[in-house]
Structures are given as structure tokens and as C-alpha cells.
């Protein structure tokens, strides 16, 4: 078998084509490696729909086309709250090519930007027009359709959102882990807490044990210590050449503590 590449003018047509099998190519930084090696065979579907590259502000945040690149995010001052996450992905070339849609499906240990989106409570808008929350989508990435856009709520207080990527090799290394925390406050207490980890499971996931500690609490030293203690609870992080699962589980609390201390 060989590769056949189809380019569709609209997202809807690309989605219809994909429904009959094949793999979607966004920026290609993940997929092309397999194409070059002969590991990807059969239909490769792309779309030239300009809507995929559009960044729009909405009533409560932003709609980012799935084909928006990390470099595009970095070029938008209004998206400053996402800059740390976008900057953490690869080097300049990967950021010029790699898309938000592709990051949602990037295999472990990738998905740093998706981790930030998950903590922000972003939703994927599927090509079919139906929304899907990222918790569901990231839990079941194999059986998903084409994502057309991602809707990201704007954090009411940008200081309530923090992101850190822990890497071994600076500056272009893959993640040991990444952490994104959205900690809105009401009357001094944390309300609507969302914390996500990247590279701590097969895909970016919510740090449920940490969220349970933080929700309703005040962000003080005792709370931070308790959150750090439970950081790895219920998780079995993967082992890869960057770090063992044991190492990831051992250090995640330390890095969470440092991030939370920055956000006090």
C-alpha cells in the first residue's frame, strides 16, 4: 500500500472523507515522521479551509481554529495567558508548524498545550458542529472525529492561571511532565479549581486528588503542602527515555508546590 494525500477545501468535506478511514494531517510535525518512515499508509486527509487558521474572540473567551499554530498563538497579545504553554512546545520550526488540533492528539510525552487547554476548561468544537469537553476527548482519543476549533474561556484573572513544563534538556526537551492550574478565587477561597498534568498518563489528564484538596480552600502553605502530597495519587505515569514513571510520580508534587507558591 502507498500513501494517498487528499486536500479538501472545507472542514466538513475533510470530516466526511475521514469518516471513510484515513488519518488527518494538521501541521504534520507528528504524522509526517510516520509518512517518511512508511509507517503511515493509505489515506492522508488535509484541509485548506481558512477557518481552521482563524482566532476569534467570543463572549467569554476565544475560539481558536484547530489549524492555528503555536507561533500564531504567540503572535496574539490577547492570548498572553496561553503563551507559556505555546512557547514550551518544541523549537521555533515546530511552533511555526504544529497546530492546536494536533497537540490534542500528540502521543505521550507530548501535549503540553493540550494540558493548558484542559486546565482552562476548553471545549473542542467538532467538525460535525457538536461541542465536546476536553476531559472526554483526551480520555478517548482514538475514537474522535475531526476537531474544527477549540473554544477557550478567558481566565477572569490572568494571574489565576499558571503553567509549568519540567524538562531535562533545555531548551527544546520533551516534558518530564507539565502542570497547568486554573485557580479562580471568590472571597479569598478557591472556587472552580482545575488542575491538569501532561506526561503523567497516556494523555493529559485532570489532577483530581489535587483539585479536591484545593477546592474551597485558601491557597496557603498548609493547603499547598497537602496538594503536593496527593499530587501523584491514583496516577501511573508512563516510563520513557526521558523519565521513569517512578521518577515522574516522585517529583510531580515538588513541581506542583513550586507552581502553587508562585500563584499565591
Amino acid at each position, binding site marked *: 500500500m502507498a500513501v494517498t494525500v487528499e486536500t479538501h477545501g472545507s472542514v466538513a468535506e475533510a470530516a466526511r472523507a475521514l469518516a471513510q478511514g484515513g488519518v488527518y494531517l494538521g501541521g504534520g510535525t507528528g504524522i509526517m515522521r510516520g509518512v517518511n*518512515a512508511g509507517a503511515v499508509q493509505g489515506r492522508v486527509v488535509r484541509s485548506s479551509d481558512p477557518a481552521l487558521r482563524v482566532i476569534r474572540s467570543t463572549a467569554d473567551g476565544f475560539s481558536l481554529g484547530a489549524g492555528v499554530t503555536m507561533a500564531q498563538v504567540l503572535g496574539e497579545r490577547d492570548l498572553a495567558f496561553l503563551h507559556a504553554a505555546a512557547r514550551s512546545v518544541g523549537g521555533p520550526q*515546530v511552533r511555526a508548524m504544529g497546530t492546536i488540533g494536533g497537540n490534542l492528539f500528540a502521543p505521550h510525552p507530548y501535549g503540553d498545550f493540550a494540558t493548558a487547554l484542559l486546565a482552562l476548561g476548553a471545549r473542542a468544537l467538532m467538525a460535525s458542529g457538536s461541542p465536546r469537553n476536553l476531559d472526554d476527548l483526551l480520555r478517548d482519543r482514538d475514537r474522535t472525529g475531526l476537531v474544527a476549533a477549540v473554544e477557550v474561556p478567558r481566565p477572569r484573572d490572568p494571574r489565576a492561571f499558571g503553567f509549568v513544563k519540567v524538562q531535562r534538556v533545555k531548551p527544546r526537551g520533551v516534558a518530564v511532565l507539565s502542570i497547568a492550574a486554573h485557580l479562580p478565587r471568590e472571597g479569598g477561597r478557591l472556587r472552580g479549581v482545575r488542575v491538569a498534568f501532561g506526561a503523567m498518563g497516556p494523555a493529559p489528564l485532570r489532577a483530581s486528588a489535587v483539585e479536591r484538596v484545593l477546592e474551597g480552600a485558601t491557597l496557603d502553605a498548609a493547603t499547598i503542602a497537602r496538594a503536593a502530597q496527593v499530587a501523584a495519587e491514583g496516577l501511573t505515569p508512563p516510563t520513557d527515555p526521558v523519565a521513569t514513571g517512578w521518577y515522574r510520580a516522585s517529583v510531580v508534587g515538588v513541581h506542583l508546590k513550586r507552581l502553587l507558591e508562585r500563584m499565591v
Partner: protein
Amino acid sequence: MALKPVTFTLNGNAKAAFTEDGQNLLDFLRRSVGDLSPKYGCGQGGCGACTVLMDGAPVLACLTLAEAAQGARIETAAGLAGAALHPLQEAFMERFAAQCGYCTPGMLMAARALLDRNPRPSRDEVIEAISGNICRCTGYEPIIAAILDVAEGRVRA
């Protein structure tokens, strides 16, 4: 397999060539178009030796589909020199920033992308701009110094 025509500009000159499904831009430029300046290092996005500019942005030619270059403006290291060498090329020579030279075309294009966007980068910005490019020979310092020489006007444009 059907051949697909691709028309684009390469270093300012109109070009047309055929690509096959799945062919990457690096292979296309080298084998179908005859520009041997972008290098094949890894074919996986890890080394940056294949860096070219596509509509002004630095991209990895090995991870770009050749057919995505349809209508695009492609620039490679082969197009840097006019009647004289490009200032970046002069500075790389002056600073001994090329030893085996394999990484050099990619480094030059990553540097070019930076200076086009930000003509007076800081040292940290230079380091960041070449962070997707690997050099096994120089230890990077001469490359950083060469790019800063151009940015800070020590090499005449």
C-alpha cells in the same frame, strides 16, 4: 501513483515540478527541484538541518508535505547570497561558525527567520531561535556570536 504539479517560488524564482503523494518538501527540493542546500539529518524533526522558510516562517522541510508548498514562497540557504555573500554567511565565516558545515544551511535559515522578524535580538533570543537546530561540531558559541555580529551591525549588510 499520480504525480501532482506544484508551482511555487524558490528564492524569488518561479518554479514548477511534480511531486508524488506523501513526498516531503526536503526530498522534493533536493531530488525534484535540484536545490541541495537544505540537508537531510534525521527526517523526524529533531535536527533542523532541513530548515527552509515557507512564506517567511522557518519550517522543517522533512516534515512538510511537498504539495503544501503549492503557491508558497520558499527560501533556502542557496538563495542567501546575491553578488556578494549574505552578511550571515560572512559572519559565519569570520567566526568559524561552520566546521563540517552540515548544520549550516539550517542554522542560516533559522537565523534569517529571526532577523527578518527581530533585527536586534538579544543573546537569549538568538539561542531560542536556533534551539531547533543541532550542531555536533561547534558547541554553538561561534554560531551565536556570528548571528549577534550581524544583529549588532559588526558585519556590513
